[in-house]
């Protein structure tokens, strides 16, 4: 039987197709119907609520996976059933700390980071820290800001000097929230907001902004595939992982499980990372990641998981956002509207 996989579409799904779908079908004979969604969590939740589930596997952000899992809408996945790493490490140990959760098997780790067009800055005068993003004196000009409290508030605090490890403690207090918004105030007049991942490279290419928050994969794409002089600033970025879930009531749970086992095993995971610059959550897969598919540029240094990129990085807290998203979302929207 065919299985239906719902994912992000675009280059993300293109990478999945090459790294997972085609080899999986070749190996098992199970066909794959690929469906895209703006954010798969929304239609999946609707499908489960309506008792009309057509999706077998979906790719979720961690926070969505936690939320829907708590609500009983995703099948719990016993991580111990996952295949061992290619080096023999049991699955439970092979996945990076904390990335496994009750209902989701992680697929990749992506980061939202600051990026800029290197050609627009003199040698050595390029932004070098997250604080620079908020420094309009030193770096006048527009900047692209993600239109979401998540990530943005964390970055604001880090730019304001809060160490990554303390960000959520601070943000959990009213003063911390005020502090984050106060920091945001400093760039409010210079901000161009974006929502779609494709917008930041466009903004950079058009010269509309001097720097922008962006998903690291998009910047990498522009740089490697189109030769754009775009660079990612590996400081104060926020990373999160996303992965596969099985909706409660999915029509083909067995084949779905087969697929997840296959896709999240070491070799395919590495193949995936060669095709899009998101890090693999499998420790055993990291060394397998070679050059960017079809080039001789090594992929590893461009991944959010590359140790040198992780010096001042923050792991997005699903627990925090599950609790506070509604409230902070409303406050963020109110802040956007206020002058």
């Amino acid at each position: 039987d065919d299985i239906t996989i719902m994912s992000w579409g675009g280059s993300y799904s293109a990478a999945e197709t090459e790294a997972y779908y085609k080899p999986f079908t070749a190996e098992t004979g199970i066909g794959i119907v690929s469906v895209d969604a703006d954010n798969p969590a929304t239609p999946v939740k609707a499908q489960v609520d309506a008792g009309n589930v057509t999706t077998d596997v979906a790719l979720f952000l961690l926070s969505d996976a936690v939320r829907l899992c708590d609500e009983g809408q995703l099948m719990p996945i016993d991580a111990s059933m996952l295949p061992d790493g290619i080096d023999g490490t049991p699955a439970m140990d092979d996945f990076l700390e904390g990335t496994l959760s009750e209902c989701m098997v992680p697929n990749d780790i992506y980061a939202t980071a600051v990026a800029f067009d290197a050609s627009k800055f003199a040698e050595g005068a390029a932004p070098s820290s997250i604080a620079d993003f908020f420094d309009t004196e030193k770096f006048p000009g527009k900047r692209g800001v993600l239109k979401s409290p998540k990530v943005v508030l964390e970055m604001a605090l880090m730019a304001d000097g809060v160490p990554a490890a303390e960000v959520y403690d601070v943000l959990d207090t009213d003063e911390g929230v005020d502090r984050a918004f106060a920091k945001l105030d400093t760039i409010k007049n210079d901000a161009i907001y974006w929502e779609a991942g494709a917008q930041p490279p466009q903004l950079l290419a058009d010269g509309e902004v001097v720097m922008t928050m962006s998903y690291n994969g998009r910047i990498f794409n522009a740089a490697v595939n189109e030769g754009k002089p775009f660079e990612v600033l590996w400081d104060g970025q926020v990373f999160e992982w996303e992965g596969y879930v099985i909706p409660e009531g999915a029509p083909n749970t067995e084949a779905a499980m087969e697929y997840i086992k296959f896709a999240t095993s070491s070799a395919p995971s590495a193949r995936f990372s060669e095709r899009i610059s998101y890090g693999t959550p499998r420790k055993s897969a990291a060394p397998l990641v070679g050059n960017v598919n079809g080039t001789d540029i090594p992929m590893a240094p461009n991944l959010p998981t590359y140790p040198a990129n992780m010096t001042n990085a923050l792991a997005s807290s699903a627990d925090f956002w599950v609790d506070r998203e509604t409230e902070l979302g409303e406050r963020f929207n109110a802040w956007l509207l206020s002058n």
Partner: protein
Amino acid sequence: MSDVASQLTTADGRPLKAALATAQARAKRRAFFLVLPLLAFIVITFAVPIGQMLQRSVYNDGFSQTVPALTQWFEANPKGTVPDEAAYAALASDLNLMKETRMAGDAGTRINYVVSGMRSLFTKSARKAADLEPPYMAALLDIDEDWQDPRVWNAMRTASSPWTLDFYTIAFDRERDADGKLVKVDENQRIYFKLYIKTFVVAAVITAICLLLAFPVAHLLATLPMAKANLLMILVLLPFWTSLLVRTTSWIVLLQGQGVINSILVALGIIGDDGRIQMIYNQTGTIIAMVHILLPFMVLPLYSVMRVIPPSYTRAARSLGATSWTTFRRIYLPQTIPGIGAGVLLVFILAVGYYITPALVGGADGQLFSNMVQFHMTKANWSMAAALATMLLVGVLVLYWLYDRLIGIDKLKLG
């Protein structure tokens, strides 16, 4: 007059009005049967689904379905009762149920809408529910102090019934304080009401601009010979065929700082390179792009009405001494009212409901009320989205009613 009328009767003594009504009943039925298929269609394919959806704005069983014990306790104890050990015992039993049915998330989410940050209270406690031992109050407070927060208990009491007005409370920028009284939320959390008003204002501005731009064009098209008019009509229709997404993107290309228009102006020396005009990522951008998208919705109804206005009326007016302007204002314009009405209705309502374009070109303050609906939909907060949608719906219906009152839907029908 009507006194006399009510006394008027037909030959056999029936009131004339009644006789008239009977005589017209057939005609009424016939008219109604023409509408019936569509009405049935809309009711089945649209009204029922939407009704069910909007019902969620007052119905949310995320909490109520997993708290049988607490519900009993709430029924037995009036509002304001300080939760006692029995209450906590009920809570513990319900937490156990949540754990079994994996509903803690649902329950927590429901309470979290009202008291922020309380979702994890439920998931966390449910996870540990199996280990709870009496006295439950102490045990639960041991897990989290928040269990004695009266706001949580108030929220649980309200949410123990699936029927609720909580979401409208939020939509009106209100919340319940510890005593359960309705108060305004913090200044920096107030958003919906302001946005609501703003949305209608922006829609009105867009409608007005569309009307101003569409009127001359529709008039030109209506007065030109058919052959020429049809050629020009292509110019109106082309944008129409083009995806909304593409057109919106195209406006970004045109309007942005380094965009086509600014670059042309710079090249012509009209503005300096550092004097580029900010035409997008603000209200201006939203309005320009939306006017462009909605303009055909104004032009076409105007055109189809203008095309059939006989020239003899304008002639008559001129012969009676009216200047061309007066003729236009007093004779032509009133006869285009059905078209204006249709266009205004279309454009305004569409403008109120748009969210993609404002999101893409609107910048910080470019979002409209529908963006909020969208926001909650993507967060799967059906109830909140439904409440906001209902507000939008009611707002438009009130305007529709006003329009009917002031101008009259019947103005859509002359005579």
